[in-house]
């Protein structure tokens, strides 16, 4: 059998979950043996070059670009996994969810004391930048997600265990000590 192909992305996340993927130390060598990476910040492949087996998603969706990428992942990956607090529940970025997006934008670009050079009172609107959504969405509210790995970030052992379980098609053994995250 050829190596399973993995893709990863960070949406509205802090890259902490990706750091945790790397945090498996020397097992990263085993991982390279076990799988092949496709689109991912880890190898800097920008576009999908083939269909993948597993997609790991860090972060929820805060803008139109996130939606686009997430939908692309759904199309290209057999299995999608929400990795970490942000992907599963919105996480820290979702703190803005109680506040209307107009207010957030006005505060950030017009009213806040740190705004100094914005003399024309512009809220960025260039056609090349992604559009901000009305709130931050967990991934499963956008596309179908198959598995969820809790943590902020999920511990390296947890990500490792989950990947191996998925690849070898066996149930996950996740003791409390591994999933507990405070």
């Amino acid at each position, binding site marked *: 059998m050829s190596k399973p192909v993995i893709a990863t992305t960070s949406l509205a996340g802090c890259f902490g979950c990706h750091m945790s993927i790397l945090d498996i130390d020397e097992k990263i060598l085993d991982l390279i043996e076990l799988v092949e990476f496709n689109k991912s910040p880890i190898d800097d492949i920008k576009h999908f070059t083939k269909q993948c087996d597993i997609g790991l998603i860090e972060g929820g969706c805060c803008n*139109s670009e996130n*939606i686009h990428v997430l939908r692309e992942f759904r199309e290209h990956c057999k299995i999608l996994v929400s990795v970490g*607090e942000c992907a*599963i*529940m*919105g*996480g820290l970025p979702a703190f803005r969810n109680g506040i*209307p*997006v*107009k207010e957030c*934008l*006005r505060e950030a670009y017009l009213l806040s004391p740190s705004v100094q050079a914005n003399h024309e009172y*512009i*809220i*960025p*609107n260039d*056609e090349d930048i992604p*559009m*901000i*959504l*009305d*709130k931050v*969405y*967990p991934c*499963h*509210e*956008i*596309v*179908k*997600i198959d*598995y*969820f790995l*809790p*943590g*902020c970030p999920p511990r390296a052992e947890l990500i490792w265990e989950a990947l191996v379980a998925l690849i070898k098609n066996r149930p996950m053994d996740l003791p*409390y000590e591994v*999933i*507990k*995250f*405070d």
Partner: protein
Amino acid sequence: MVASVTSILEKYNKDKTRLMDILLEIQEAFGYISSEAVNEIARCCNISTVDVQQTISFYHFFTQKPTGKYTVYLNNSVVANMMGREQIKETFERETGTKFGQVSEDGLFGLFDTSCIGMNDQEPSAIINGKVFTNLTPFRVKELVRGMREGKDVEELMVEGYGDGNNGNKLVRSMVMNNIRRKGPILDDNYTPGIVIWKKLPTMTPEQVIAEVKASNIKGRGGAGFPTGLKWEFCRRAKGDRKFIFCNADEGEPGTFKDRVILTERPKLLFEGMVIAAYAVGATEGILYVRHEYKYLQKHLESILQGARERNLLGKDIGGIKGFNFDIRIQFGAGAYVCGEESALIESAEGKRGEPRDRPPFPVEKGYLDYPTVVNNVETLCAVVKVMLNGGEWYRSFGTQDSTGTKLLSVSGDCKYPGVYEVEWGFSVYDILGMVGATPDVQAVQVGGPSGTLLAPVEFRRILGYEDLATGGSIIIFGKHRDLLKDVVLNFTEFFIDESCGSCSTCRIMPVVLRNKLLKILNGKGVIKDIDDMLEWAKVLKASRCGLGQTAANPIVSSIKNFRHLYEQRVRMDTDFDSGFNLAESVKDYIEASGRVIVE
């Protein structure tokens, strides 16, 4: 006003670890805790105002605004709803001209919801200015409101007469009923208070006491089921200049009320149990932590403690044993289910927010004020007295191999005889239903409260016991006519949302996400995948720090397991995935705010 706040502060030596008591007294004296009072407390106790505020904001019964001359807290448990709470609520709102969650403009009435107040066998019920009013009817509510408008005292409003047993005692004067339906070793009338302290303890070493408790194989009755003898041994071995015995009478799990009945009818038994525990572990101080909802029992409990001191059952050289000194104080909570969790209970007794601690270390090593502390449930401590009196072997003759002794059940819901039943472990659900006069068309039984299991009839042969259905004793029965998802599962899930302490992101957020999904299904918008998603997300909650978060998905998980058809009947079958998300809709606000030009 500040003058009296000062006297309250002085009464507690301006001790910040007694902040709960200080706040309780101020709340009671003034009906709220003003910002001047907050400043005064902070100044005198040498803490920041934020420290005071964060404790105030944590508890349901502390308020920073006046809550009305008559403050009504109406229970919103599942059973209260089943027994007609909605009508009661409407009548209160109509008669007072005030909505729930608000105080009337003239400041006369304040109406509020509250989680289960431990009266499930006499619902609908409410706490009005600290007094419990049970079996409310719309007619009674009209009378009550009329009486309030006439300016009557709450005592005067209670025209029904008092409840049975000690509820009628002049120190209690409550209309609450005990509804004791079946007695066993714990509720036995044949009990001479102090007999173990006088006759047994002087003849035994602490180690022998622990050995006897171990021999009984008794496990904690508060839910977690930890072996009591072992807990005491750990605490005895732990190093510490002071040691504490805590009795957990927080009883917040919706549907449980047996500890209330023990506190009313067998407080001497309970205090004797605490003394035995103190002797065994070498503790000198005891704290009985009682939920705020049972504050009407305060004078009764205080007087029993005073009586025990006079009889040398508390105090110095207890029972004539040289050097055995121990006393008990009562700590009231202020309305927070999570304070029943032992480490949160300790935090709360230290005057802080009731947030569970990260463990280890466990309380037996580092508990109250960081000293070794035993926390035991009311019923556990009562049972121990009988173990000491009749021996561990005698105790093992009750129950099953793994679950020795008896268990007090709090039975409520659709049955003829709700109330407290003391049964041996090993009773089947089926036997219970027969005993309590449940109608033949029982649809489901909730064993163990919201954090327990929702059983379908095919499982009624299962037995109560640590080996099968471990439970703190809450049994709620649902007839065929109940809508399990809407009336039960949704209510339980909202209970967890309200009661989460908010420390863990999982427990703070996931129950909300689950509730929204459940609502989506109840509103006919759900798809099959939503059901499986809920099961998958439930696992995330296991990452939480304490039992509240870890069990918060149980109502959903166990109802999907046992009543999946109820979910499937309500979901759409025409599509596999539909989140209802619409990109164009969700960027509309941004486009408006920024004036962005959209090029198709």
